[in-house]
């Protein structure tokens, strides 16, 4: 609970502080998020050792008051969000100064902080309507952050605004239907009240509205149309933050809706519903990759790659009713993708920051000019492709095993095909950076003296941390260590087995 309050407070503090001193904004943000992050780790530990935390807002009992529930899944997502936000905030300091006029800085950081608030809120809430409120907070701030860059970003943001509002409306309609049928908005209550009403048309319609609404926000293919523009034209910091956290939170909301509100019985009582989800995900995986291959702008390519990677997570969710490995894969990929994509966007931001390079074709020799940023990019890209022992490999393994257990061989083929497609579009960049052009000089190249050309440390360190995490996580997921987390999540979501 404290997490939200602090964040909200600090957002306003930043605004106030901004009038006094522009420089302080960033530090307040960093301080707040680090505090939140430490808190979230503490919460995760508490959840894993003691059990679910429930907090009644204002002391009102659940059916009337708003309840915050933190179990293993959202504690995990919380840690992911805050960790990424922290790194991005550190990174942002120098980058934002570079990309945004100083006048706007306080506004930028308070919106940044509000976005983090919104994301955390979505994660911890146990109330359907409260989720909507935070969803709007997060979305509105995201529109604003994207528009900060000005120019074409305004149009992108406007596009996003329209699509996002549509999504929010759909979600709202779903909430309305459920309330009219059950008279409650609390997730826990809904879970108990809904089963007898599964046959009710309003409930079914609500489910569809929820899924579509959240899917728009999570840019699930084919509802992704707003996303590439938004990611491309937003400031790099913002694309990194939104790409790595926002979509994850939306996916989290989807998982929460499917498991905690509607439960598996609902999904399974409509034969084929899970398969529909899987096929949509499969389409997303392939289509996203193919679009990514056709791009020349690095950030746009990464954006389409996100569309494809979100497909992985959704596929995991879709397979999870049949195989627990599906859920493992989805959960693991939430973290993996956040780390990998965060790293890639930060690196892309660094390229733009330092060299002003957007177009992949101009990347020749970048490996020499910016060795660390390029190395970070390469590691994250390898991880995306899913080459062991990087992180992407583990999620791929889980998903393949899930597809096998579900006897859905086409998905195995799709996952493997996607590996190759990923290879095509990422390797093109790596080739450009390191190998293409200026070879052939049959002499030991004078290894560039001023490495990195003075990329600020505050931008470099977050990138390198994320790159290292790509490898560490890959090994972490393969060990037994995450099993307690998985078991806890499974039991919280009411899935048997494990």
């Amino acid at each position, binding site marked *: 609970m404290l997490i939200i309050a602090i964040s909200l407070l600090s957002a306003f503090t930043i605004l106030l502080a901004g009038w006094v001193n522009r420089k302080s904004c960033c530090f307040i943000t960093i301080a707040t998020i680090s505090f939140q992050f430490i808190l979230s780790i503490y919460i995760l530990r508490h959840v894993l050792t003691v059990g679910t935390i429930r907090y009644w807002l204002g002391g009102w009992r659940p059916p009337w008051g708003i309840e915050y529930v933190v179990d293993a899944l959202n504690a995990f997502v919380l840690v992911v969000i805050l960790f990424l936000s922290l790194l991005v905030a550190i990174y942002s300091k120098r980058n934002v100064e570079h990309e945004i006029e100083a006048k706007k800085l306080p506004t930028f950081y308070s919106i940044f902080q509000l976005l983090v608030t919104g994301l955390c809120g979505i994660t911890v809430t146990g109330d359907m309507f409260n989720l909507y409120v935070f969803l709007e907070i997060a979305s509105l701030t995201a529109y604003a952050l994207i528009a900060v860059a000005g120019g074409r970003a305004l149009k992108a943001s406007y596009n996003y605004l329209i699509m996002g509002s549509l999504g929010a409306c759909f979600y709202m309609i779903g909430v309305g239907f459920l309330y009219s049928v059950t008279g409650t908005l609390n997730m826990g209550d809904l879970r108990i009240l809904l089963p007898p009403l599964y046959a009710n048309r309003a409930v079914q319609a609500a489910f569809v509205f929820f899924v579509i609404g959240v899917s728009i926000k999570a840019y699930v293919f084919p509802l992704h149309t707003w996303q590439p523009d938004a990611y491309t034209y937003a400031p790099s910091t913002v694309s990194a933050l939104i790409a790595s956290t926002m979509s994850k939170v939306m996916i989290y909301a989807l998982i929460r809706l499917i498991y905690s509100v509607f439960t598996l019985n609902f999904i399974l009582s409509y034969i084929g519903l899970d398969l529909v989800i899987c096929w949509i995900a499969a389409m997303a995986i392939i289509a996203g990759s193919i679009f990514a291959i056709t791009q020349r702008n690095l950030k746009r390519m990464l954006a389409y790659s996100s569309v494809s990677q979100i497909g992985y997570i959704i596929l995991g969710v879709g397979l999870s009713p049949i195989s627990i490995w599906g859920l493992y894969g989805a959960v693991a990929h939430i973290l993996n993708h956040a780390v990998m994509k965060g790293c890639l966007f930060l690196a892309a931001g660094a390229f733009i920051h330092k060299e002003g390079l957007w177009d992949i074709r101009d990347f020749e020799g970048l490996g020499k000019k910016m060795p660390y940023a390029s190395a970070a990019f390469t590691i994250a890209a390898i991880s995306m492709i899913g080459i062991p022992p990087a992180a992407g490999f583990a999620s791929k393994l889980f998903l*393949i095993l899930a597809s*096998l257990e579900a006897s859905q061989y086409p998905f195995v083929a799709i996952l493997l095909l996607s590996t190759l497609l990923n290879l095509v579009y990422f390797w093109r960049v790596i080739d450009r950076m390191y190998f293409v052009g200026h*070879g052939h000089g049959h002499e*030991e190249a004078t290894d560039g003296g001023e490495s990195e050309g003075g990329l600020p440390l505050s931008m470099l360190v977050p990138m390198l941390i994320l790159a290292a995490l790509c490898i560490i996580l890959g090994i972490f997921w393969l*060990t037994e260590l995450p099993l307690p987390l998985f078991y806890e999540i499974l039991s919280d979501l009411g899935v048997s087995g494990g």
Partner: protein
Amino acid sequence: MELMTPLFAILCPAIAAPLILLSKRHPNVREGWTLVASVATFSFVLSMAPKILSGEVIECIFFQTIFEGVYFGLKVDAFGLIFAITSSSLWILVSLYSIGYMRALKEHAQTRFYFYFAWAIFGAIGVALSANLLTFYVFFEILTVSTYPLVIHDQSPEAISAGHKYFAYLLTGGCFFLFAIMMTYYLTGTTDLIPGGISALGSASRTILIVMFFCFLLAFMKAAWMPFHSWLPTAMIAPTPVSALLHAVAVVKAGVFGIVRVVCYVYGVDLMHELGLWLVLACIAGFTMIVGSFFAIAQDNLKRRLAYSTISQLSYIILGAAFLTSNGIKGAMLHIPFHGYMKITLFMCAGAIMVATGKKNISEMAGIGKQIPVTMLAFSITALGMCGIPPVCGFISKIYLCFGAWTLDQYGIIFLAIILTSSLLDVIYFFPIIYTAFFRELPKGGGSGTGEGKIKEAPIFMLVPLTITAIFSIIFFIHPNTLFIFDLVKTAIVDLGFGGV
């Protein structure tokens, strides 16, 4: 201590790699690291041999994975050790050689070269010593990725497109491999490499097993069996030491090693018989042997001819494994180190010829036997070995293969004929090279390169390794148990349950 030896063995190259990168400004220190690491790796690997020979297995478990029943770790058995000894001993020699080669040609990006070289060895040794298919896969992919920068070292457009082809083939293979592994795990709950095969696999349906086997085969495109071989000649654009170690030893051997592992340690002899898969495999191998040799005859570029020769020779190993008899498998296992030593000599000679004379095509090589006698002598010896002519070690492995074919219940004669024909073809494509080099007159006038001074032998750094490997090829014939190879093969055969020799 004993248990940690395999870990040390694979750690050596992994530690050397960053050190190489750090000392990039001091070429001598950098090459020093490579040499130290290679010697250390080799000694660690060799030190495990006596224990393995006494019938024990060294297991080194890193951690239990999230997949129940699968751990991530190393397990050293006789067969794995053969491959490990081969790659690590040749790493020392190739390191020496590449120092000479790279400096003589003043190649660019030498640091990168040594860096990825160390990682490739890390992958190869890891493949050799891995305990189960999952570990195998991880190292297998590391090997693939780390060799890419080596293949495209030249960075010319052709090199890069060759690299793309290399990646397209091998990583697609990787995808099939991953599928096959997960399928194995799904069916049996284990991915361990067990001598005699995973018994639980027998209960799966016939169709699935056959499909899986083809996935495994596609996974090992590294073995360059036809028609999935074309990446290998293309990849010959790499610098010669790379072709030598990686494309004659580490990468392709990892492929055939994998096939033998799958045949004997995953499916098992009985299951292979029952499904009739041995015949399929043997036919693929036989086809590749013959057709590969024909392709080799048609090549004029020396390295490309050697590449096709590799393709054909690798299939000897596959064929031996496919026979599923004690002698056949023995021949296959022997051919891994023997072919490694012989082929590496040939490649190093090809590189030495290029450095000394600048010639790449066989038709230009008239008379070079007199100019660079040591190199060409080494070349001739090992070329004879390739054809299976005593007193070079190729004879031993081939004779076992012939025994293996002879003792087959069916089709034995046919396969025997294939082996003999292929050996004959080997003679046909190697002999002209020797003939041209020694017995053709040097063309008078502007023939000899750019005509600046007399053509001398390649630098000593290149000459020594290739002489050593050539001598070893003969020693292996006289005394097959050098480096414990023969005993290890016997142990491996006993492990597989063939009893006695």
